[in-house]
């Protein structure tokens, strides 16, 4: 019995939160890897892209909450998520058009691109803090928990309990869906294959008639979507604070 109890304590304090946190990191990292592989640089502004997407989602969530719109037990932020993703995608495309494209055309070295993206990072971070402020923001609503510690104890008669929150479950579901979806997209669709081809050999891809600008745009949109998703889930699970995303 002690052993089972210990296991439950471990689950409650380590495994469940870690799985959720890992999922949030994985979603962010997925976009980061995509940029690294296809555009060939370390995207330092990724964390702030997450913050920006989360910020837009929070703002829209507040509007929705103010208007009394909810989705029952699920957080209202889910409704606002598409707006956040859309805004972040536009932001990423805008940053690419205004900044990255210039350096890409000059075939700038990856290290230069890192510095450039660090510049974008500072601008974005400033923007986010200017709009929503540097403080802690909570925007989670709806049902908070799927499994509560007390219910679990009553159900099993064990002295230790497990809590599983809605954001944690959402994170896991979103991560698995995103991973499978992206894999399918890259392995099966024409656009996905052309992205891998471009990552492998940009010159040959160009000579084969693959539109590199289009590939780049698709990368940004996907990365922005994943970053926003990761940011919002993290914010729901814990709280939103611009500096957390910055670091």
């Amino acid at each position, binding site marked *: 019995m002690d052993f089972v109890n210990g296991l439950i304590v471990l689950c409650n304090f380590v495994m469940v939160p870690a799985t959720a946190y890992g999922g949030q990191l994985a979603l962010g990292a997925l976009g980061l890897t995509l940029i690294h592989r296809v555009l060939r640089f370390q995207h330092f502004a990724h964390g702030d892209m997450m913050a920006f997407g989360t910020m837009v989602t929070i703002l829209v969530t507040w509007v929705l909450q103010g208007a009394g719109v909810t989705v029952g037990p699920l957080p209202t932020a889910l409704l606002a998520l598409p707006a956040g993703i859309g805004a972040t995608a536009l932001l990423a495309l805008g940053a690419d058009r205004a900044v990255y494209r210039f350096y890409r055309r000059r075939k700038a070295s990856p290290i230069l691109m890192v510095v450039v993206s660090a510049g974008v990072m500072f601008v974005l971070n400033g923007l986010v803090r200017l709009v929503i402020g540097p403080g802690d923001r909570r925007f989670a609503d709806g049902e908070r928990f799927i499994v509560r510690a007390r219910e679990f104890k009553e159900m099993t008669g064990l002295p230790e309990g497990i809590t599983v929150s809605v954001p944690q479950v959402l994170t896991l579901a979103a991560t698995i869906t995103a991973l499978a979806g992206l894999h399918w997209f890259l392995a099966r669709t*024409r656009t996905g*294959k*052309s992205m*891998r*081809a471009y*990552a*492998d*050999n940009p*010159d*040959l*891809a*160009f*000579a*084969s*008639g*693959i539109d590199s600008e289009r590939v780049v745009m698709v990368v940004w949109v996907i990365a922005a979507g994943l970053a926003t998703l990761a940011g919002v889930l993290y914010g729901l699970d814990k709280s939103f604070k611009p500096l957390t995303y910055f670091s």
Partner: protein
Amino acid sequence: MSRLVGQHMTGGYGGADILNDCTVAVEHGEIAVIVGPNGAGKSTAMKAVFGMVGLRKGTVRMDGEDITRLPPHERVAKGIAYVPQTDNVFPSLTVEENLEMGAFLRRGGFSETMEQVYELFPALRDKRRQPAGELSGGQRQQVAVGIGLMTGPKVLMLDEPTAGVSPKVRDELIVRVVEISRSGISILMVEQNARQVLAIADRGYVLSQGRNLFSGSGEVLLLDREVRKSFLGG
């Protein structure tokens, strides 16, 4: 009217001119070969025809149409395929995906062309699910030629397709090139192994320092005393 001709091409990569009034052409269903010593501008001449080298003077015409100002991928759409000497496959994509990328610009089905490529290079059919990067050098060249063929070209340009492969694989590849030309696709190729390819060429160009030194049918060049002395080792 030539199928594809680069006339009086002069230009380079921005610095000094690499091509000086260089002319290469290929006729319908012919094999034309560019030979010459290292640094003669053979590959550059081919890249210029494909639009990868800026030309200060001269024109490139396809079936009489002036395509001098078209970017490379639009030349692909006009029916020109170019197979680079190196980095000519997508290493992490499977063989079949590589071929699909060749057909990227084509609308409609291309399974028939893919079937033709597999018939030409049966080894590729067996390895179609393998990443191209895992293949041997010779098979990788086959994939590269396959990518070129998948664009559905009228002219196939090959930049030293036999570089770095064993003599046996080289002979095999040259036989395949002849087969491709018999199917009605014109071939323009750059080669180091001048003697062997001039034997199959309808037309040959000997370049040196970006200039045409000799040109004529493959046989004539092979028999020409001067060409033999300077490029074929006697």
